[in-house]
């Protein structure tokens, strides 16, 4: 564990052994004889063509008031540069494909060694890849692999540019979860992003952009 300067957890934090025993005893008694019901099958959506999935994804992303640019593989760097616009500094995870950054004008800051929170807060934009994306819900799923970096990267800067390859796009949530289940089993965190941060807490008026990145730009790259 990379605890570093962090305080070491106490070896005996709080003894809850007695609570544990009592709760387990009560739960055992409570469910004694309870039968496990037969599980119905997972209902699935009618499959769509690749073209429909792409169209649906685009529709959903725009519905969240996020931006989307669709380009062939050769156009990735140009689209990223355009998405970054006048951004002066952009942070990238250490394993980000170099090809996505060619020809951009922004200063590229690599997160390695790890930047402090304050340093991240001074950078306007972040560029990441993703693990899988869902068309039905317009969701980007990050499993924080080498091209996505640790969770703080895609959280603190105000603009998140996320590159999605067409082969990473699936139609449904269960399909997406099947693709990242192995990452979860390895202990990796997941971040699901569906549009920019938003609140509807005041009179249910939707306000785009609260604490997370206020702008999200998806670059959808062809095979």
């Amino acid at each position: 564990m990379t605890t570093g300067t962090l305080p070491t957890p106490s070896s005996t934090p709080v003894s809850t052994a007695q609570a544990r025993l009592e709760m387990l005893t009560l739960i055992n008694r409570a469910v004694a004889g309870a039968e496990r019901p037969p599980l119905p099958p997972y209902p699935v959506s009618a499959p769509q063509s690749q073209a429909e999935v792409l169209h649906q994804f685009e529709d959903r992303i725009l519905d969240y008031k996020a931006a989307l640019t669709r380009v062939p593989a050769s156009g990735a760097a140009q689209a990223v540069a355009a998405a970054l616009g006048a951004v002066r500094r952009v942070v990238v995870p250490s394993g980000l494909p170099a090809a996505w950054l060619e020809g951009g004008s922004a200063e590229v800051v690599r997160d390695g060694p790890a930047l402090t929170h304050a340093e991240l807060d001074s950078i306007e934009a972040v560029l990441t890849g993703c693990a899988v994306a869902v068309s039905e819900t317009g969701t980007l799923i990050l499993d924080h692999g080498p091209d996505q970096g640790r969770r703080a990267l895609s959280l603190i800067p105000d603009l998140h540019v996320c590159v999605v390859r067409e082969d990473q796009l699936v139609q449904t949530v269960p399909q997406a979860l099947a693709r990242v289940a192995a990452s979860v089993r390895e202990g990796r965190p997941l971040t699901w992003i569906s549009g920019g941060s938003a609140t509807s807490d005041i009179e249910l008026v939707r306000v785009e952009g609260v604490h997370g990145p206020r702008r999200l730009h998806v670059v959808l790259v062809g095979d």
Partner: protein
Amino acid sequence: MRANLRNVTGAIRAKRANVVGEMPHWEQLRDLGAALKDDTLADLPDRLLQLERSVQARGGQVHWARDAREARDLVALIAEQHAVTELIKVKSITSDEIELNLALEERGIHAVETDLAELIVQLSKDSPSHILVPAIHRNRAEIQELFNTELPGEGQLSDDPAALAGAARRYLRQKFLTTKMAVSGVNFAVAETGTVCVVESEGNGRMCVTLPEVLVSIMGIEKVLEKVEDLSVFMELLPRSSTAERMNPYNSFWTGVTPGDGPQEFHLILLDNGRTNVLADEFGRQTLRCIRCSACLNVCPVYERAGGHAYGSVYPGPIGAILTPQLLGMYDKNANTLPGASSLCGACYDVCPVKINIPQVLIYLRSEANVQKGLTAEALAMKGMKFVMAEGWRFEGALKLARVGQGPLVRGDAITSLPGLLGGWTQSRDLQPLPKEGFREWWKRRGQEPAAASGEADTSSESKERV
């Protein structure tokens, strides 16, 4: 207040119907959600032990809390070990249930709510009135005034929700970047892997579970799922039922401690606080399927008119009316009245993503509550009515008596005022009096007139007059 509430619940209702309508297999998905929850609850001891092992294997610590006090003490002790005097919090009803903030305050630890609505509630020293939109009872002018007084350095804000949200962003950002410890609730936890999930919209949840050094998550024992794949069912059911979105903006999943990423110390508190009581009741147990989406609040005609605070419970609305009395026990004098606060219209059951049969549980709990209350005047009246109803002839006789007895109450062609308990009826409604001839008399008379059986020779003039 009521106008705010009606606008909001009406708007969410319409949006929900839309996004649910997009899912042709919604009903099967509900069935699966309910079955998965029941399945896990039936095996809860094993699931919790599995969860504990998985979290520990990934460097997290697991604690068990029998009641609110034990859970509060655990959080406070962890804070004290780190010499923390201020911590940040993600909206968590479980933490409201255990009255965490107050307890921490008493020990010199200030808990800052970071969800916008919870912040509004906290700054105005109020309590939440809705599971999803806790400040639903506050309008923008009230929030404007509140922020102008309570948020330092903001000057005069307009009442534009975007400007108010912007002020909250500036106020909280420094807290997110510098606070050492955070407390969160848990939407789901996966036994197989030890993965914990928090679902949110604003990004404050991501901030809290990612940036501090120490993270404490409190979960009711019923939040556990078995497998990673089970998550997708609830990720489909919850957002559409809750915020009426296809997916809410952010979902965070983490497993114990991730080296080099996020808090390097993680505590998971497993809370009972009455849940084993609910679990022990074979019929009431389905209440523990609840995923706190609040769809039942948004369709409830009683919640819409009475408001969340009327329930006197952290869990308002239909789900609160069945969960609270079961958590607290049927002898609790406020809680045991909650199952009565429903017209049993059943709208809540239709929208529940995990098919909790709320109207049936309400009916069930009403009897459980009455057992605690003993032989009341109402119970005696019910016994008396049952005695009358036990024989057809007895009921017929009683109706004949009533026709005579109602005389003094009838004014014109209606009863406009009733004595005692029944006065609740005539407060805003008339009651029509008993008719001169009952069905039974008509039926007997008709049986004696052979002509009546085929044709309609004997159409009573009374009926005609009613046109």
